């Protein structure tokens, strides 16, 4: 058996090494988790008419998640800090591979091909979604 001093030094070093190994293990677990949960990209919104917005440009693209909310608030999947977009503007949901859009609480409204989407409306690829004066095209 070693001298006590040496043994205590080994214990001290071992503590540090194990602590950092543990952190590494957690980080590896987290990255695996993220990779497993990474959403499969099933759709995009492309700006085709930016209206009076100074924030957006024609051609801007937004990736959609299976459940996407659009609005100015920080809890939205897609945050658009534009004056014509409300805090919680619209929600897009994917069910069985099809996209549905619904207005949440917006001042300027949500429309699919000029039809108001106060209830959930089916959106096909190529359809135009209007959030107030801003027009998007759904692309899959």
């Amino acid at each position: 058996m070693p001298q006590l001093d040496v043994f205590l030094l080994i214990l001290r070093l071992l503590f540090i090494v194990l602590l950092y190994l543990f952190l590494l293990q957690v980080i590896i677990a987290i990255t695996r988790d993220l990779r497993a949960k990474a959403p499969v990209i099933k759709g995009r919104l492309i700006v085709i008419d930016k209206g009076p917005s100074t924030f957006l440009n024609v051609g801007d693209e937004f990736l959609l998640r299976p459940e996407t909310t659009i609005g100015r608030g920080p809890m939205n999947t897609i945050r658009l800090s534009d004056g014509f977009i409300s805090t919680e503007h619209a929600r897009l949901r994917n069910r069985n591979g099809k996209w549905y859009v619904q207005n949440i609480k917006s001042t300027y409204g949500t429309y699919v091909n000029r039809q108001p989407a106060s209830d959930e409306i089916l959106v096909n690829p190529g359809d135009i979604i209007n959030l107030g004066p801003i027009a998007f095209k759904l692309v899959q």
Partner: protein
Amino acid sequence: MSRSFSYSLKRYRWKEFWLFIIPFVILLLEMTQLLLARLIHSGTLNGTSFLNVHNLPTIQGLIPVIGLIVALFAVNIFLSIFFPKADQMLLPLTGLLSGIGVLMALRTGPALSPPDPTQGTRQLMWVILGLIAFLITMIILKNMRWLKQYRYILLAIGLLLLLASVVNAFRVKNFNSPTHDQLNFGPFSLQPSEFLKIILVIVFAGFLSERRDFFGNNDVHIGFLRIPVPRVNELGPLAIMLGISLLIFLGIRELGLALLIYGIFLCMIYLGSGRITYVVGGLLIFAASSFLGYTVLSHFHIFSYVGERFQTITFNVVDWQHWTAADELFAENAGLQIVQGLIALSSGGILGAGLGLGHPTFVPVVQSDMIFTGLGEELGLAGLFGIIAIYMLILYRGYRIAVETADPFNQLLAAGLTSIFAIETLIIIAANMNFFPLTGLPLPFLSYGGSSLLANYIIIGILMRISHDTALAKEREGSE
């Protein structure tokens, strides 16, 4: 039979199990180190003596740590049966932190003056009670709506408990003592404010998730500046919250709690509205009113400790060779805690003295408020970085749970509860390093103290229940 067995193996929380292994080894090694250090202190061993079977510490010494390991493992099995989908990283992280907390309580207890030999055992008991509270929280919260519906009843209970400690404060009538926040139930003493902070987050989350449209559609334009003007129905609760936090500052406990509650409030306002202007405005109001309060109070010579705490920050500890007599007097009285804490941190160096081999008890109240300096002395800079990294991972998981859940109330609740950990850790670590006036906040999971441990495990319970519900909801959606 074999099918149900393989089914339960599949449900078993393997990730959590594997993450528990290294913390368990760390705790066992550190306990061994602590026992050896005790033998050195008692004179049985010294640095040059050789270890053999006869002078090794007995296996009974490991019992506290083994007890903790068994408790954590039991929780792991319980969760595998009832909540297999809940987050698997939070418990190993918090388990390691509270294990280190128990070791520090075991270590500092006998060295305190007056010595407190049962401190470690009590801390262990509180951790186990905390784990039980954690499980109860997860079981009770069948429906998160329940919290939202009964939030005002919860708030009433919390304020009632707080009122009792206000009355207590006036009975004791020592306004220069920092803390009045205590209620005694026989052998137990509870700090109601620890639970009040959870209740306040629930109330804020309920309020903000119901009225998210109130914020932000009411701006005054001055040139390119957009200044949000709060309406009366926003301003009302705002003013009440500010009032409560300042009241607590004045009546019950020191700056720390008021700062914590106000910080949580600003975090949640930001999360609910997305406007940084509210946060900046809130901070300006807080700074102005604190300054005003401070000037008035120091004029009447009450709350003298607050002034001393501010004075400590400007005190130059490094330049000790040129201290005047007044400086020395300050370092030995009002500034003692911080000065000793900084000395402890610096003497720890990079690797630390090793658990049980430093002198952390030179720092007054090292077991709770100043535990970070004690850890710094014995585990070193490397250990402190590791501990801070554990906190960061806990925060990451908490905010992640908030991002993944779909319900606005649950989002705000999870983010707000995680913010409690963030603000507490930030304030108390900054105070220990003398970047910030020292305030009576515990370092989550590490500081000695039952109420704080119970409250923190209840928070973890709520977070894990939300993550379990979210995972179940996603599964249901996927199978549709």
